Each structure stands twice: as C-alpha cells, then as structure tokens.
C-alpha cells in the first residue's frame, strides 16, 4: 500500500517565490543591519576601515552620546530634543493632514455646495504641485508672518492634503446616504453627525492615512531645513547630517558612529507606528461593521 503512492512532482513555483521574497528582505534589511553593526565602532575606526561587519565595543557610548550629549554649533541640542522635534513634526503633520482633509471631504460630500465637484478637482490638481514647487512663496509667507523657527511655521504649511481629501471623499461617498438621513431625523446636526458617526466609521481610513502621513512627515527634510535655523528646532533627520557637518567644518573626524546611531534611532518610531497601527488597521478591516 505504501509503495502505490506516486511521488509528488517537485514544485518550482514556491521556491521561486521564496527566493524573490528572501532577496527582497535581504535587500531591505542588510543595510540596516550593517548600519547598526557599524554604529558600534568608534569614529576613528570607521573613518579608517569604512563599513564594519562585526560588532564593536562602542555601542553604548555612541548611542548615549548621540542621544544625550549636547552638540551642534551652539551646543544646545541633543538627540532627545531632536527626537521630540521629529515626533512633534510627525504627529502634527499626520494629525493636521487628517483633520484638514476630513473636514474638506465632509464639506464636499455632505453639503450641497454649488461648485463642490469643481472645488474638488481644484484641490485634486494641487497634487501636481507638491511643496517643493511652492517652497519659495511658502517660505516668504511664513517669514512675513513671523512664523519661521516655530512649530506652527514648520507644520501648518505642510498639512493641506489633496491625497487625504481624495481618500476621505471616496470613503464618505461609500457611506450609505440613509445613515446621514437617519442621524438627521435622530436630531444630530452636522457637527454631531461628523463626530458621532463619521469619525468612528472612518477609523480604519484614519489609521491608514495616519501611518502614511506620519512616516512622510517624519522624513521631511527640505522644508524643515529651510524654515528652522534655530538648532533647538532641529529634527532627527536633520541632526544626522548636522553631526558630520559640524565636525567637517571643525576639521576633525566626523562622528560616524554617532551619526549611524542617530540614523538607527530615527528609524525606530516610524517602524513602531507601522507595527502598532497595522494590527489595529487589520483588525478594523476584518471586523468590518458593514
């Protein structure tokens, strides 16, 4: 009986799939691992030998210096302050975009505006004009408003979001009209309907957009560089650059180890956000209330 079984033919497809997946994973992970390993060596050694493949002995020192030693020209800013600034930027950016675009989409979908569709397309075409295109006028405006070197000036010009408005608009349009009508009869005005019904229904959308926008905001480089000259407002992403910049300017060996340590730390919050919200996001999708 045992012999009668024919051998299953060997399947190449899974091998092929997995090879691609493993290569992809390595492609993404190896640089991170190398950065981490290298960040455990002293600046001198890195300057001499380049990227390191075995862990060194300066791990704790590099990280604690990167985070807690005041640096920069003015020696007023350490990694913790930069981490805080980055968090403020990331959160302000993501939340600001969500709030603004939800309100815009709400107006477009639920109110009988005469030019709603036209307004929507105007908003939509601004996708063609990212911040980089309007960076000079934006800078000028913020400067005149005396908002340079403030969190407000850093965040507000970035929060208008055609993408967010588009996604929320599409989502709101998929919400049955009767829900709004039932709420109207139940005595919920526009504000109550928005807060009591629409926002809870949008949870998954909000989570998804929050992930994308937080990471996007966290990684902002050009605008913060332009608008914040005060070192107390530097973000991590800028701080990494700043570490060698000051050293090179001072004609000493750049603190490669510390810069890499900072780079590793700068990667953590977005990763954590994605991990945290993803489980939430998937839960929202599978427990669909429809």
């Amino acid at each position: 009986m045992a012999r009668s079984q024919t051998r299953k033919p060997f399947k190449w497809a899974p091998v092929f799939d997995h090879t691609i997946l493993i290569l992809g994973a390595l492609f993404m992970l190896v640089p991170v691992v190398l950065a981490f390993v290298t960040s455990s060596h002293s600046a001198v050694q890195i300057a001499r030998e380049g990227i390191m493949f075995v862990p060194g002995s300066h791990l704790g020192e590099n990280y604690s210096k990167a985070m807690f030693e005041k640096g920069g020209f003015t020696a007023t800013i350490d990694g913790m302050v930069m981490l805080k600034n980055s968090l403020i930027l990331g959160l302000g950016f993501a939340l600001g975009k969500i709030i603004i675009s939800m309100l815009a989409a709400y107006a477009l979908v639920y109110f009988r505006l005469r030019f709603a569709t036209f307004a929507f397309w105007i908003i939509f075409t601004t996708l063609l004009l990212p911040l980089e295109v309007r960076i000079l006028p934006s800078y000028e405006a913020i400067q005149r408003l005396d908002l340079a070197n403030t969190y407000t000036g850093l965040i507000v010009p970035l929060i208008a979001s055609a993408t967010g408005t588009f996604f929320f608009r599409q989502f709101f349009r998929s919400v049955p009209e009767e829900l709004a009508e039932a709420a109207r009869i139940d005595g919920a005005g526009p504000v109550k309907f928005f807060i009591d019904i629409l926002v809870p229904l949008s949870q998954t959308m909000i989570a998804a957009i929050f992930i994308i926008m937080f990471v996007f905001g966290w990684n902002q480089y050009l605008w913060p560089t332009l608008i914040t000259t005060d070192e107390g407002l530097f973000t991590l992403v800028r701080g990494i650059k700043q570490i060698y910049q000051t050293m090179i300017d001072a004609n000493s060996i750049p603190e490669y180890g510390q810069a890499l340590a900072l780079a590793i730390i700068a990667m953590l919050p977005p990763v954590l956000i994605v991990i945290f919200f993803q489980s939430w996001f998937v839960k929202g999708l599978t427990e669909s209330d429809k």
Partner: protein
Amino acid sequence: MAQVTLNGVGKTYPNGFEAVKPSSFDIADGEFVVLVGPSGCGKSTLLRMVAGLEDITAGSLNIGDREVNDVDPADRDVAMVFQNYALYPHMTVRKNIGYGLKNRGTSAAEIEAKVQDAAKMLDLSALLDRKPSQLSGGQRQRVAMGRAVVRDPALFLFDEPLSNLDAKLRNQMRIEIKALQRRLGVTSIYVTHDQVEAMTMADRIIVLNGGEIEQIGTPAEIYHNPASKFVASFMGAPPMNLIDAQLENGEIRMNGSTVLTAPSDQAYAGPVTMGIRPEDVVIDEAGSTPFTIEIVEELGAHRLLHGRLAGHAFTVHVGKESLANAGEVRLQIKPDAIRLFQPETGKAI
C-alpha cells in the same frame, strides 16, 4: 399622535423631473396608510418629503396643526425606518436605539429606561450590547423599529422596511409591525411596492403610478372597485383579468362571438376593457362561456388555471376541491363580477 394633511404637495427635482405631481389627502390620527406602487413611481420621494429629507416644491404639508414645509426633520416629531435599516454600524443596539434621545438631551437614566422598554417590546433585550454586524436581518429590522418606537413620535414613516428580508420573515414582521402600530396607535405612513403588504397592513391604501395618485381607499374598496386598469392589474395576485371587448345594449362581446351580460345600468356603448377577478368566476357545466385550460398551477390550498377565453389569456382561481385538467370547460361569469374600464384612459366606467 397627529393627523397629516397634504395639500397639493408635489416634487420637481432640480433636474426638472416631476417625481410627484401635486397630491392632496388626509391621514387621520392613528391611521395606518400604505403608499403602494411600482418601483420609481415616487413613493419614496413623497415619504421623504413628509420626513423633511426632501424639499417640498409645491403645496403645503401639515403634521398636527402645524405646517411643516420648512421645519427641520428633527423637529417634525417623526421617526423613519429605512429599507437598509441605516443602523449606526459602530454603535451597540442600545446606543443605536438611544441615539435620538441622547441628541434631544434626555437624561441617561431616562434613556436607559426607555431603551429597555422598547427592547422588551421588540424582543431585543438580550441583544442590547451587540453591534449591528452581529445581528441577523430580522433582528436588525427590529432595532430599526426600536429606534423609531423609543422616541414616541407623532408619526411613523416606513420606506419598504421588509424588502431585505426573506419571505417567511417578511410575513412575520408584517404582522408584528401592524400589531405594534395598533398597540401604540401612532399615525403611520408605510411605503411598499408589494401589494400583499399593502392589502394586509393598511387601514387605507394610496395607489401611486407615475407620480400621480390613482386611487385612495380601504383594501376592500381598492380590490373590489379599482378606479383604473392600472390599479386593477397592480393589486391582487394573480392580477385581475383584463380583456378588450365591445359593449352594446347591455352585452359585452369578445372577438365578435362570445357574449357576456354587462353589469346593469350601462349607458355607455363602445369599446371597453373588461376586468374580471380570477376568483369571481365558477366552473359550471351549464355556464355560457367556454374556457380552455392550458396550464394548471397547483398551490396547495387552491389552484390557478391559466388558459384562453375567447382567444385572450385568462386566469381562473379555484379551490383545492375543484378538479382541474387541461382542456375545455365552461365558465359561469356573473354580471356583478365584471368591472368596466375605458380602454384609452384606463379609468373605471
């Protein structure tokens, strides 16, 4: 509780389409009125105007003594049950039912008490902490009812509330809704395209067609004395048999030969459409009208005999004791079983 008065109420949509022609009727306090008609005839539009969800573009609407044309839906003291129930998906049954009260500033304790009462009435007590996604269709329907009942409104509005249920549940809910309305005595307007629902539930039926009222009457009036060919064919299953014929000297001629005696006192002469309910004829050896049975539809309690009468499609409804085989039989058609309509206008003569 309140009476409702429509005075020339009509609706022209912004695109120029007149969905409801100016209509006038009164609904008495506590009455259960069913708006019935084919899909697209303007039933929902009319109901939504009463609810305040759609602007009234002609005429005036009174609920109680108050003209409510420009009153917000929340302030009209109406509750509405939607076809898809429109339950708030993220709220528990308890919150769904209590939401309207909460928005009106009712105290938490009072909301809880009222929600409990409504839940008990609708057999939902065990389900109060579930979300709509965890309920069956029938249970969702009950929650939608609960949301309407709990506010103790002057007027219930139903827009095809049973269309999403299976046939068995629909029959059951039909009775429950009717019983509940009787018990609470709340004036109700119920929209449906299902003539069975209309017949069984209504105190009075309003038949709509193409945005116009065809007839208003009790189920019996509508059934026995349809005001038009449309009503005759729409109400009743199987529908009334309609046959084009010629009326002269108190005789109705079909295809020249077959002759029936017309209902008495007919001054009219000329072409007519004759209507005969399938159950108003009897198979009788001595009958004067030949009928060819082609298909027998066995329905348990009764049978439907489909065939030809003077060349026209014709259906006869007989009891289960009545024998039925394909072939020739003779029918006895009494004059008072015959309704006559004008062929062009469709109006009853």
